[in-house]
């Protein structure tokens, strides 16, 4: 019962801060689920950072299905933590977990912190949440909890394509020029730019994106209240207002040297494609590249001169087989292919697909416009077709197919040559 009262107390105490954050809450007299989750997430982060507990033991709790949700650790009374613990985990782990969870101070700390976070406009997402970034969900070793400020929908389910632009903290003029140009061109094609808010290339990437009113995401190594480097405070504020800043670390955590590689794994994981502007021979940027490769993200590298120190890393990556970035077109073409295949995959694995095929046979006139597009694209995936062949294969009349083909042609998805239509895998 004690635990319940603690929770209750925390809830009441957080009411005050709710009022200041009216936009995030549905009813003034009750705490929003958001703040309860925030408290729970802060509690989890605290556990992870505690060497007594650590992320590994927490994960093992989940993996062995001892708890439904990590947030239960915070909201449920201790005695509901299953007794089964002993049968599954080692004795040492069990005692550590038990002692950590018994710590009352930890929970009240989490409550206090949550209040502070709400005041700063910092929120959290948990891996169990719907809004957890789609790109991270499919990867292993991604953070259980993320803190963010700004617009999370940028990375949501129906997200825009995202490209990470990273590079050296001491860029050459060449690197700066390329970064500005690539960032501008990508923004013009509605692509989100992800970077790390570090000095040098990262800063330029963010600034250029904001200049052309694009969407940008900054992934920080430390807590969101600890902006590092400090001279980027203004930039940070600007990104918060139009874009998104993310961190794995709870507020209050200083950016430490060892956190940076961990930050880089989130950075590459969030993006669909990583573009390396300039990297020295032992640059941290190379970490990002290797994370990206491991996560199955394409790495595009700007070729530099063989004389510049800041290009050594680039050239090494190219030698290892990274893609060359000669113009932003390279990135756009690859992204188009990715997003196209992703769409096709979605529909291919979809139950709905079968129903489309069924309905196509029964009553083709009832299919929606989008479904027709998918059917036509699918026919074109395997071979070039003439209009007559398409009509025969789909069973649509000419007047149904023609406008769709025209539309696809205008979008640049389909190209016609010698009266045959083919997919271009290019859709910007």
């Amino acid at each position, binding site marked *: 019962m004690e635990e319940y009262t603690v929770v209750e107390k925390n809830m009441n105490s957080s009411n005050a801060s709710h009022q200041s954050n009216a936009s995030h809450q549905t009813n003034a007299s009750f705490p929003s689920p958001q703040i309860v989750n925030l408290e729970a997430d802060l509690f989890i982060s605290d556990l992870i950072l505690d060497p007594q507990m650590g992320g590994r033991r927490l994960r093992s709790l989940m993996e062995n299905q001892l708890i439904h949700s990590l947030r239960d650790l915070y909201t449920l009374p201790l005695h509901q933590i299953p007794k089964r613990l002993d049968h599954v985990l080692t004795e040492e782990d069990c005692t550590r977990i038990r002692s950590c969870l018994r710590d009352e101070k930890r929970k009240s700390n989490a409550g206090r912190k949550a209040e502070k976070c709400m005041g700063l406009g910092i929120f959290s997402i948990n891996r169990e949440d719907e809004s957890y970034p789609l790109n991270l969900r499919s990867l292993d070793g991604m953070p259980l909890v993320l803190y963010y400020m700004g617009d999370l929908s940028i990375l949501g389910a129906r997200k825009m394509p995202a490209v990470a632009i990273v590079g050296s903290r001491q860029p050459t003029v060449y690197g700066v020029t390329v970064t500005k140009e690539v960032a501008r061109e990508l923004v013009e094609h509605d692509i989100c730019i992800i970077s790390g808010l570090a000095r040098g290339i990262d800063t330029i990437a963010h600034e250029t994106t904001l200049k052309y009113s694009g969407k940008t995401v900054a992934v920080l190594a430390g807590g969101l209240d600890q902006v590092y480097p400090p001279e980027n405070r203004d930039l940070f504020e600007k990104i918060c207002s139009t874009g998104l800043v993310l961190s794995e670390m709870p507020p209050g955590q200083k950016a430490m040297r060892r956190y940076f590689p961990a930050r880089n794994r989130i950075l590459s994981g969030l993006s669909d494609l990583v573009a390396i502007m300039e990297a020295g021979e032992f640059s941290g940027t190379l970490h990002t590249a290797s994370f990206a490769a491991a996560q199955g993200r394409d790495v595009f590298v700007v070729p530099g001169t063989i004389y510049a120190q800041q290009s050594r890393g680039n050239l090494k990556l190219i030698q290892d087989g990274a893609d060359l970035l000669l113009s932003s077109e390279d990135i756009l073409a690859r992204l188009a292919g990715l997003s196209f295949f992703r769409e096709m995959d979605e529909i291919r694995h979809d139950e709905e697909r079968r129903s489309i095929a069924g309905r196509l046979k029964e009553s083709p006139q009832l299919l929606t416009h989008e479904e027709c597009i998918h059917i036509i694209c699918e026919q074109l995936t395997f071979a070039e077709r*003439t*209009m*007559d062949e398409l009509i025969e294969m789909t069973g649509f*009349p000419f007047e149904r197919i023609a*406008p769709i*083909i025209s539309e696809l*042609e*205008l979008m640049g998805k389909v190209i016609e040559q010698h*009266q045959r239509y083919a997919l271009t895998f290019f859709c910007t």
Partner: protein
Amino acid sequence: MTGKKNRYAKISTCFLYGIEGFLADIEVAISSGLPAFEIVGLCDPSIRESKERVRAAIRHSGYEFPTGRITVSLSPAYMHKSGSSFDLPLALCILLASGQIRKKNKGRLFAYGELTLTGEVHEVPGSIPRLACTKGTDIVQIMIPSRTVREAALLEVTAIGVSSLLKAICLLEGRSMPQQEQEQEQEREAEQVKILSAAVPRDIQTESLCESVDFSLLRGQKKTGRAIFLAASGFHNILLTGSPGSGKTTAARILQGIMPPLLMSEKIELLKLRSVSGILLDEDLYKEERPFRYVHHTCTAAAMAGGGANPTPGELSLSLHGVLFLDEMSEFSPHVLDLLRQPMEENSILISRAGMKVRFPTQFLLVGATNPCRCGQLLEEPKSCTCNEWQRKQYMNRISGPLIDRIDLFSELYRIDKSSLLESVQGTNLHLSDNLREQVAACWQRQYERCDQAGQARVLNGSNHTHQIMEFFRITSKAAEFGVQSSEKLRISARGLNRLLRVARTIADLEGAGDVQISHVAEALQFRQKTS
């Protein structure tokens, strides 16, 4: 008889100028003097030749050719006249002037026809315009070659067909023919006065429409099927591209068949042209089918545009209100093709000769057919084309840009597969064309109504050269914007955009939609010319 000083007679007749008939008067004056026979009034040698025919025919019919000075005047004297149609009126006029016969009816008499030496009356080209020019005049009696009474019936002109000079004389004098002659007459032809067009058997009309190729024979060619349907619905010029044997001619034939029958006024205009060029067949009079002129690529400029010292209409005019089919369009001599440009915009062609200018109407639906390249295999799969890129360009460049600019629809045909081939050989019992023709007719009606509302002459979308295209065609601003955007992306010229919107209008008309929407423009985009 020779005692009288000035013996004089006058009969009305007609002559052709271009495709129009003009009334003319023949006057004959016989005066005493040295025997002479003069014809005046700007006539060419073909009329002077008639002297001998007239002389022989009069004698053969049992009358005397008068002696004395015979002066014949054809008026209006300032217009150039030619042909043998003056024989009959001239003979009658001489007989009247010489007093050998007497008119029973005092009113104005009209006659034309060619005489043989034995006095038989033969028909001459141009019966329709000749008969048409008698309408609305004070002529009371019309005599025409007996073969042309059906034309008269069609035009609702009360005319009497005469087969011989003798018969003409009898009619003139108001007496019956001698018994023996009459029997001969009845054998040859007894058909007389005023057969109204209502008397034309209905079943002949409908049957003639079914003769054209049915739409179902175009199996497998979906895009082209739609294209020719649109071409017929909006009178849009169309270019069909396809390998040899893919059915381009069939498609053109079907296109002709799905167009609504000719209107009466159109039909008469067409018959005029045909009768002037002397290719009018009896069955043409009952046909309501639109003309289909198959023009081979060896066609000369004169055959295409019309010509001759005495200009006759060419293919451009003979395809009036119907289909002008140019097979192997890229094999035509370029200057012959360029002849098409002016008539397509002005709906008429002017033939200038020394001393005369003739304007023939032209209003045709151009159906071009061409191979995609010299070897003709470019569109076929598996790829078997042996031409190189340069050759292909050369081949397509033979059709000049300005002409291409006047073509609204471009479609392709492919060699049909085995099963369709079998069907096309067996033929089908389907009558898809009938249904389509009704849809086309309804679509035309909508276009005419729009013209009426705007107070314009009735024209179909394909030949509508309005400048307020947005307003007149009721194109929504969204659709227009879409059209402009796609023109930019697909590099369509301003004229091309104009055509695009006109085709979109026809698509909307077929649906019965009031405004042109984006989807209509998007469909029309597929019929644009594609550079290969």
